[in-house]
């Protein structure tokens, strides 16, 4: 968060719920954050905490049964939620592109990888790029992500997992988006490839100066690529701040427990504190603070009153009544 550009993405009081037969499932509860140009934000939390719902809302691809009850998603000041499907379609990939969870299957098996990238380029460049220009662009993209450009003429099944993921990143970059959302892009890969790709992603992001939202359940991975971290629990943003701050001095008990349950190789030896209990049932979320059933610091107040997202200074925000009781973790670095 050293040099701030103008605000690129502003999510403001977003509330989204899924309409199901059993009732409303609360997926995103009053989430707000701002992302500046060139900045990277990590969203971390357990599965089902609403991170992917946020990503899908940003893309305008939330499931059919999703209902927005409040809030705005502004990209360059324009409210995306107010756009119709046609207008939104023009923004996709051009303004915001995405690297998906399980990118292994992101490729259509019957088309060549190059043709699938070209499809996006043909659609979003106005005037249309000439055949040679788009070919040239794809070659540069492939070189950027460390792939041999001859692979453009190959089919997805001829790529290894790591190569497919690199190609997905190349495709995400193909239309010069202002923002890339990466949703658990490395989960299915082995650790070494995972690390290579993370570094590659970080490098490209710095190089091209675009913004990045990185979504993962693994806080260590997030710390490696992002400037800012948002910790989500049960559809709410419970802690938000610079990566360094949150990582070294987590103030929310959930963030604290998440970090304590992650072993650190470089930091001092410490006992791992497991996170106990089950994620809440979002059909009927707990009252007050949603974390209270699993929280070691919970009091009666937590059961009744919902803590607001409070600024502790320096942009470090936390939603907890007892943030001052959370111990200070020392030296947990990635």
């Amino acid at each position: 968060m050293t040099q701030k550009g103008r605000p690129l993405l502003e999510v403001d009081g977003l509330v989204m719920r899924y309409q199901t037969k059993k009732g409303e499932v609360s997926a995103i509860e009053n989430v707000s954050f701002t992302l500046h140009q060139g900045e990277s934000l990590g969203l971390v939390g357990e599965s089902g905490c609403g991170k992917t719902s946020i990503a899908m809302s940003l893309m305008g691809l939330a499931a059919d049964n999703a209902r927005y009850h409040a809030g705005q998603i502004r990209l360059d000041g324009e409210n995306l939620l107010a756009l119709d499907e046609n207008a939104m379609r023009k923004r996709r990939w051009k303004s915001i592109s995405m690297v998906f969870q399980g990118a292994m299957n992101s490729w259509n098996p019957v088309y060549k990888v190059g043709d699938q990238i070209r499809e996006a380029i043909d659609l979003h460049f106005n005037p249309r790029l000439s055949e040679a220009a788009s070919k040239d662009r794809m070659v540069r993209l492939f070189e950027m992500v460390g792939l041999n450009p001859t692979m453009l003429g190959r089919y997805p099944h001829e790529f290894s997992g790591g190569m497919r993921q690199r190609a997905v990143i190349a495709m995400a970059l193909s239309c010069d988006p202002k923002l890339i959302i990466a949703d658990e892009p490395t989960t299915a890969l082995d650790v070494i490839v995972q690390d290579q790709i993370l570094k590659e992603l970080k490098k490209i992001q710095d190089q091209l100066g675009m913004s990045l939202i990185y979504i993962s359940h693994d806080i260590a991975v997030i710390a490696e690529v992002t400037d800012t971290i948002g910790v989500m629990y049960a559809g709410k943003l419970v802690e938000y701040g610079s990566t360094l701050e949150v990582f070294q001095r987590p103030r929310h008990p959930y963030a604290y427990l998440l970090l304590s349950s992650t072993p650190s190789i470089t930091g001092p030896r410490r006992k791992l504190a497991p996170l106990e209990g089950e994620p809440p049932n979002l059909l009927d979320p707990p009252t007050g603070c949603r974390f209270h059933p699993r929280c070691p610091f919970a009091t009666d107040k937590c059961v009744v009153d919902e803590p607001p997202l409070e600024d502790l200074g320096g942009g470090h925000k936390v939603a907890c009544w007892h943030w001052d009781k959370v111990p200070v973790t020392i030296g947990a670095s990635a």
Partner: protein
Amino acid sequence: MLKYVGKRLIQGLLLLALFLALLYLLLEAQPGDITQQLIANPQLPPEAQTMLRERLGLDQPLLGRTFNYVVNFFQGDLGLSFTQYPNTVGQLILERLPRTITLFLTATLLSYYLGFSLGKIMAWKRGRSFETALTLGGVAGYTVFYPWFAILMLWLFGFALNWFPLGKFIDVQEWTGAAVTANQLFIQLLVTAFIASFAVLAIHIVSRRLSSEDLGGRVRSIGTPLVIVAYVLFWWFNPNRVLVGDLLHHTALPVITLSMVNFAGVMLLTRSSMLETLREDYILTARAKGLSERSIRDDHAARNALLPVVTSLVLALSFVIGGGILTEGIFSWPGLGQMLLNATLLEDLPLATGTLGIIGILALTGHIIADVVYMYLDPRIRTSQ
């Protein structure tokens, strides 16, 4: 790719030989051997009996006789028909083969084209009442008792509405004094249709090779209708126009009826295949790329949903052939199926088994074509060959 096709062809020939061998064993297994009656004729002197025995290959062991039968079949010698002597089975089959192939091919293409187009829309519009109605109609069409359905179709369109003739191949009155026979004209019709489709295919291949995609598209969109118009005009100004019209008029209802029933199965299958494809991750990617609904549906989802549908062609062949035989029988449309039925009812065994053998070859050919088409459509198989 050629290697793969070659491999499939050799496999197919082996399977065919095995099928013919089994067919012959079936003939041998029947109670009351017909050849025995010929030989055991007391009026024949013993030398003649031996000669006959040798000629029929009856002195050989079972394996040799089976081998003989298979070899003869491959050489095109299918024996003599009992009921239509002196016609050989080969001649009779050859006369009717083009008709049956036309019926099977048109019905298959029509039902697959329509079934696939409708099935993909059904999956796309899941949950609408139109989808429910089509699904119910599809199940009804798929499970309806086919001969009964065909009779009702014939009654409705041939009798009650009087749109189509009541079966048969031609209207004899129209053809009295005609310079050509129905079969000649039918073959002409087929050959010209073949040339026209070849022209369309050529246009497509050439236009894809063109440097500019726009020019290619224009060549396609002008060339294809041009060929079709030329084809129609050619027959319109043909001196035998009325006769051709009569042929087509008689062929229409059998083709429509057979297509309708096959269509239901294809539609249901496409729907479920498409529903599975729509859940795939690459569909989400396609959406995220900002592609139009139409492009997502047709280029991405339907293109993949097509694969299991092509595989199903192998299973559907049996269905098409069975349905085709019944259609020919019910509409008295003189193809191989009708001949098989008549031969069976008259116990003309050489004709019946010969026809069955040819139908087996048709099934096998369809099978191999479906395999090759699948290979062409699925790069995962194509590139591994």
